[in-house]
C-alpha cells in the first residue's frame, strides 16, 4: 500500500530563519491530510519541497519517503508524486486528448496512447471534449481534465495546492467531491493545502498552521 512519510522536515531560508521546523507526519493510502493556514505562510513551499521542485530561497532538511523509499536525492520527475496546481496548467499546444496522452506511462505505445486517453475521457463522461482546445472548454472541465491527467501518470501520492481555489462555489463543491472520490478509488495518500475550512473532507486529519512563522505546529484531529 502507498504511504507518504515526512520525517523531521525543516525549511530554512538563506538567513537561517526557519519557515518550518521538524515537521513529521505520515499519510496512508486513501487518506487525506489537510494543511490549513493563511495564504503566504509557506504551505505551498512545503508542497514544492516534498515534490522536489527546486526552491530558490530555502534549504530543505529532513526526510521525505514514499512507500519506504527515501526521495530526497531522487529527481522530481522520478518521485511519482502527482501535483494538482491552482491553475489547471493544460498545455496550450495540445488538445484535450493529447494532453492526457502526454501523461500516460511510456509502456503504452503509439495508437494505444490515443485510445487510452479517450477511454479515460469516456470513464468520466467527457469524451465530447477530446478534440477541443484547452481554451475552448470551461474552467470546471479544465480542472477535471487536469486531475485525470494527473492520475494517468500513475502517481503513488498526490499533492493538492489549493486546487479548488479558482472555481466558483457550485463547481467547487462538485469538483471537490469528485477529486476525493477518485483519490479514494485509487487509494492514494494525499496532502492538501488550503485556506478554506470547507475544502477539508469529513474526518480528515488537519494540521493548522500558526499565523506567526514559529516552529510550533499543532496537530489535531478535526471533528465535524
Amino acid at each position, binding site marked *: 500500500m502507498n504511504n507518504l512519510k515526512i520525517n523531521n522536515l525543516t525549511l530554512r531560508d538563506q538567513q537561517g530563519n526557519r519557515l518550518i521546523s521538524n515537521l513529521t507526519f505520515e499519510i496512508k493510502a486513501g487518506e487525506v491530510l489537510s494543511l490549513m493556514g493563511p495564504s503566504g505562510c509557506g504551505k505551498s513551499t512545503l508542497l514544492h519541497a516534498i515534490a522536489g521542485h527546486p526552491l530558490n530561497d530555502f534549504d530543505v532538511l529532513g526526510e521525505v519517503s514514499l512507500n519506504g523509499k527515501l526521495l530526497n536525492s531522487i529527481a*522530481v520527475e522520478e518521485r511519482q508524486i*502527482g501535483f494538482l496546481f491552482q491553475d489547471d496548467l493544460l498545455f496550450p499546444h495540445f488538445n484535450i486528448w493529447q494532453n492526457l496522452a502526454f501523461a500516460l506511462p*511510456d509502456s503504452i505505445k503509439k495508437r494505444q496512447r490515443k485510445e487510452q486517453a479517450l477511454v479515460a475521457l469516456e470513464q468520466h463522461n467527457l469524451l465530447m471534449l477530446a478534440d477541443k482546445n484547452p481554451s475552448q472548454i470551461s474552467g470546471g472541465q479544465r480542472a477535471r481534465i487536469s486531475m485525470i491527467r494527473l492520475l494517468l501518470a500513475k502517481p503513488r501520492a498526490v499533492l493538492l495546492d489549493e486546487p479548488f481555489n479558482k472555481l466558483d462555489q457550485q463547481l467547487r463543491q462538485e469538483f471537490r467531491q469528485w477529486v476525493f472520490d477518485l483519490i479514494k478509488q485509487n487509494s492514494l495518500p494525499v496532502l492538501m493545502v488550503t485556506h478554506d475550512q470547507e475544502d477539508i473532507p469529513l474526518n480528515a486529519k488537519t494540521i493548522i498552521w500558526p499565523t506567526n512563522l514559529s516552529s510550533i505546529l499543532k496537530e489535531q484531529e478535526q471533528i465535524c
Partner: protein
Amino acid sequence: MTKNRLQNYLRFCFQNNQSFQDFWKQFSASYCVTIPKWILASTKTVVLVTVLLICFLPMLPGLSGLLLAAFDFNPLLNQFHWSLSGFVRLFHFPGIGQSILMTLNVSIISTFLSVLISFAILKRWYQSTHWQKIENAIAPILALPHVAFAIGFAFLFTPSGFISRLSFQLFDIILFNDVQIIKHQLGLIIGLTLKEVPFILFMSIALLKQLNIKQSFQCAQSLGFNKHQVWLKIIFPQWLPKMRFAIIAIMAYSLSVVDVSLIIGPSIPSTLPVMIWSWLNDSDLNKHLMAASGALVLVFICVVLVYTVIFIEWLLLKKWVSWQFSGRKTLTTFKGIDLLARIGLGNLGIVSVLLMSSVSLIMIVIWSLAKRWPYPHILPSKWSLQFWQSELPYLFDTFLTSIGLAILSASIALLLVLVLLHVNNRNNANKCNQKRHLLIPLILIVTPIIAPQLSILLGMQLASIYLGADNFYLWVLWSHVFFVFPYIYLSLDGPWRSFDQRFNKVGLSLGKSPFFVWRSIKMPLLMPAMSIAMAVGISVSLAQFLPTLMLGAGRIATITTEAVALSSGQDRRVMAIYALLQTITPLFFFALALFIAKRTGPLESRQTFSGFNKRDSLSVSRNA
C-alpha cells in the same frame, strides 16, 4: 442621407413629444451607425491610403519594375517585347550554379544553425541564475551593426588576422593559410550565425516570459518528465511557431545580404546577391538584364525557402505530432539530440557569441588606433591618432549625412506608424465601425523585412529612373522610410496594444477632447516605447547599405556605405575607424533613448533605475 435621417428623427421625436434626452439617445445611436460609414470611414481611408502610398507603394514599382526588367521589357530603350534572354544569359554565366548553391548553403545552414544554437542556449541557460546576465548582454550585441561585426570578424579570421597571430605566437602554427574562413562561404555562415543567434534569443525573451515556463516545468515534471524532455516536448512546440517570423526574417536576410557578404563572403564565384550587385555596377546593359533576372530568381528562392520553413514547422508540429505525447523517451533518447546535449551546444553557443562579438569590437578599436601592426605581433608596434585626424574632415560630412538621413527617415516613419496605429488599431473594439475597419495585414507591413532587399530595390531603382533620377536624396530618404517603417511598427505595436484603453475613456469622461487625451495621456505614457522605437528606427536607417547606394546612384555616402567600400581596400586602420563609428552612432542613440525612456512614462517605472530598460520595452514590443 444622414441629413434625411436627422430630419426624420426630429419629426418623429417632436410628434411623439419625446424628451430631448430620448431624442439624443436615438440620434447618437443612428450617428454611430450612419456617419462613420461615411465621414469617419472616409477620413480613415484617406489616412490609410496615404500610409499605403508611402510605405507600401515601393513594393509595386519594386515588383513590376523587376518583372519588366527581368523579362527585358524596357520602354526607355523602345524594347516592347518580352524575352527570356536575361535568364538564358544568367544561367550560362560561368559559376552561376555554384553561386546559387552557395547562396542556398549559406542561407539554409546559417538559419538552421542559428535556430538550433539559440534553442540550445535557451535550454541550457534559461532557468539558470546566469540568465539575467545573458539577457543584459544580448541587447548591446544586437545593436552591433552587421557591417561592423563583419569587419571585426574579418580582422580576427584573415590569414594575417588576430587568431592567426595568436596561434603563431603561442603554438608556432600558421592558421587559415590552407583552409580559409574569410572570403569563403564558411566564414559567411559562421559570421551570420553568430550575428543572428542574439536576434533569436532576443525575440525569445519576451515569448518565454509569456509561456509560463516555471509552472509548465513543475507540472510536466510532476507527470514524470525530466527537464530535457520538457524542453523538447513542451517548450519547443510552443516556441517554434512564435519564432516563425524571426526565422523567416533571418533566412531572407542571409539569402540576400550583400554588405556582409562583400566583406567576409566568398569572392570567385561570390554569392548570388553579390554577383547581382556587381552586374548592377557594370556599364554593360546586358549585365543589367542579368541582374534583374537574377534578382527575380532570388525572389523565387526566397519564396520557396519561406514555404520550406513553414512546411517544416507544419511537419514537426502538426503532421508528425505524435512524438510530443508518445511518452517520455521517444526522440529524447535519439542519438543526434543526445549528442548535441553532450557536446554542450548551449555552452559553446553562448561563449562563442559573446566572445566573438566582444573580441571583434576590440579588434576594431585596436585597429583604429594602430599605426603599425606587422604580422606576427599580437599588438600594434606603434599607436597613433593620426588616422582619426586625417579622416576627420571626410568623416564629418559623411557622419552628418548619415545622421540627418537617419533622424529624418525615422521621424517620418514614426509619424506614419503613429497615424497607422491610431487608425489601424487592432485593439479597437468599437462596434460601431467594426465593419468598416480596414486592417492592414501584418504580412504587408513586414514584407520589407522578409523580402530580398536587393530585389525590391532593383525595381525601385528602375521606377525612380522613370520618375526622375535627379531627386536622389528624396529617393534615398523614401527607401529608408520604407525599410525603417516595419521595425518601428513592430516595436510600437506591442506597447500600443497593451496600453489600457480605459485611460482614454477616463480622459474623455472627464470632458477632455480626444486630441487632448491623446496628447496628455497616451503620448506621455507611451513615451518610453516611442523613444526606443525611434532609436531602433535610427539604427536601422544607419545600417542601410543597398538602399543608400542604389537609389542615391552612388552620390550619397554614409558611414555604412563608406565602411563597406573601404573594406575591399587595404587600409585596415581607416576601415576600423568607419566600423567603429558605425557601431558607436546607433549606440549613442540607444543610450539617449534609454535616458529619455527612464525619465518618462508611468511614475512607477521612473523611480527605480532598473524599472524600465530597453529590454523590457523592446521585449514587449517585439511580440507582434
